[in-house]
């Protein structure tokens, strides 16, 4: 037991409130005789690598889940032979895409054609910076927090338009235009419903937003205070991810595959990765904004005091940290499950219905939601974050 706690303190760096990996890493490097700056420089790529790995693993798991759950909803078996229960199937798919020939159509615009998928993928991965898995378990607690995600996700349409245009194919162009129109229109209600949450928590930072929701466990989650905002946010997120009720940009029956039509091999894989990373990211953000993030339905502090343990004992901190990660991921994957279920339940909307829903329904409602939240905040400053 002693050795274990020693390990925990020296390698996970449990110091003060919560885990602080960075300072402990820097400290341990300094103890090897490196300068502080060098140690910081060495630390820099680690979180990014971690984010990339987490995103990739998240995507692999999601792809597998999507295929298995889709199969279950249609009474099929789904992938079965690649690894136990087909868990290696996404890996095999990725490998296949990796070694496939990279085709650039003859009359396409080569430069823009290659740049498009990158512009779609990079903002999504960058947005992972702000997803907190625990009090200090996030890559950077930037002050602009959730706003960073909103602004980064507004870069995506440029990549979509670019790839749609560069493919020199009418289906691609139409798909790109649709995708851009869709993500522009749904960005606004999305931002407005985020704004309502931000208004309640008096901060843009995701950590603050989660902290506000963890006073009383399950009961203090934002979803009770913002039910309308929650629904709006979820719909908008589905539209931004081009998930099924809103997958017009790649509607097979009309547009072949939308902006992805001409893509093959690794460039197609970038789109594929982008869409799934975006799905996982959105689910994580829904859980952060509305479902209490890393919070356990019963606050860990209560449990600790019930077990009469000091809250900042290293062991308790370690348990809290891991429970936080598990809770965040669990909530996110429940939402992914809901998205997959929705995929097999709802038919695709038409483009005019899509814009109707966005501009004539979600936008006014999210504005009203914002106003009502402001009024409630003035009326009941205690419950709505005064």
């Amino acid at each position: 037991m002693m050795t274990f706690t020693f390990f925990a303190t020296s390698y996970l760096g449990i110091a003060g409130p919560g885990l602080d990996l960075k300072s402990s890493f820097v400290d341990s490097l300094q103890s090897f005789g490196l300068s502080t700056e060098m140690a910081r420089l060495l630390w820099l790529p680690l979180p990014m690598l971690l984010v990339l790995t987490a995103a990739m693993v998240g995507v692999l798991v999601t792809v597998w889940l999507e295929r298995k759950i889709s199969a279950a909803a249609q009474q099929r078996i789904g992938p079965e032979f690649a690894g136990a229960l087909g868990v290696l199937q996404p890996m095999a798919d990725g490998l296949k895409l990796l070694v496939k020939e990279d085709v650039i159509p003859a009359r396409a615009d080569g430069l823009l054609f290659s740049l498009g998928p990158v512009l779609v993928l990079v903002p999504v991965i960058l947005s992972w910076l702000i997803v907190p898995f625990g009090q200090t378990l996030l890559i950077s607690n930037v002050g602009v927090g959730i706003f960073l995600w909103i602004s980064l996700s507004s870069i995506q349409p440029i990549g979509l338009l670019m790839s749609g245009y560069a493919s020199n194919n009418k289906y691609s162009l139409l798909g790109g235009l649709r995708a851009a129109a869709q993500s522009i229109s749904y960005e606004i209600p999305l931002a407005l419903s985020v704004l309502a949450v931000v208004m309640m928590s008096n901060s843009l930072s995701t950590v603050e937003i989660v902290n506000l929701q963890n006073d009383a466990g399950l009961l203090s989650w934002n979803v009770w205070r913002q039910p309308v905002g929650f629904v709006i946010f979820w719909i908008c997120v589905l539209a931004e991810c081009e998930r099924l009720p809103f997958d017009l940009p790649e509607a097979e029956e009309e547009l072949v595959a939308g902006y992805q039509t001409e893509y093959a091999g690794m460039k197609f894989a970038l789109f594929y990765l982008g869409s799934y990373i975006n799905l996982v990211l959105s689910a994580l953000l829904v859980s952060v904004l509305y479902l209490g993030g890393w919070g356990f339905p019963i606050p860990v502090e209560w449990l600790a005091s019930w077990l009469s343990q000091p809250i900042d004992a290293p062991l308790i901190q370690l348990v809290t940290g891991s429970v936080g990660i598990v809770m965040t991921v669990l909530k996110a994957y429940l939402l992914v499950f809901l998205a997959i279920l929705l995929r097999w339940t709802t038919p695709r909307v038409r483009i005019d219905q899509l814009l109707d829903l966005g501009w004539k329904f979600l936008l006014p409602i999210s504005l009203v939601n914002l106003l009502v939240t402001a009024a409630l905040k003035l009326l009941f400053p205690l419950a709505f974050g005064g």
Partner: protein
Amino acid sequence: MSAFLKQVLGYTSDAIDAGKYLLKGLSVTFDHMRRRPITVQYPYEKLIPSERYRGRIHYEFDKCIACEVCVRVCPINLPVVDWVMNKETKKKELRNYSIDFGVCIFCGNCVEYCPTNCLSMTEEYELSAFDRHSLNFDNVALGRLPTSVTTDPAVQPLRELAYLPVGKIDPHGVASDQPRAGHLPSDLLNGLQKEAPLEKKSDVELSDGENLKG
């Protein structure tokens, strides 16, 4: 003002209705998760084709009299009967016979009308090829017998839905001696015989004939 309020109320109730229907749909989808798949995993497991399955045609070269009836009854005049008149014997001499299964619609007309019964339909359905010309079977290929699903050691034979015992939907794990649902004509006839033992004997023979596969 009241008109506006009415509109808003209608809008709200519409939205709530839409949500309700969505939830209903979700519950249906969720309910489907409960049902187990009955997938037949094809190359390893195969369904036993029914008795009257119209698969690839089998042809016996020696029985054929080159009468070309099969060509005439075929909706697309498909069989190619390649014969020459032997001047000395004044008889047709059959040299080749072929059917292109890339074109055949497996209607069974040729089998039905062949006067010498040299055509018959087999249970073979695996007719995919890399080259469509390799589906043009000549008399040698037409004379081959397909491997039966039940005798192939690499294949797990499974019964089709209509051949399963009462109440079963999944063919997996059904013992081969469990009787199928309903009665075969032969069973009915046997029952009738017990009731009226004075029936004619020819019916019994017919029932034996029917009992070949069931």
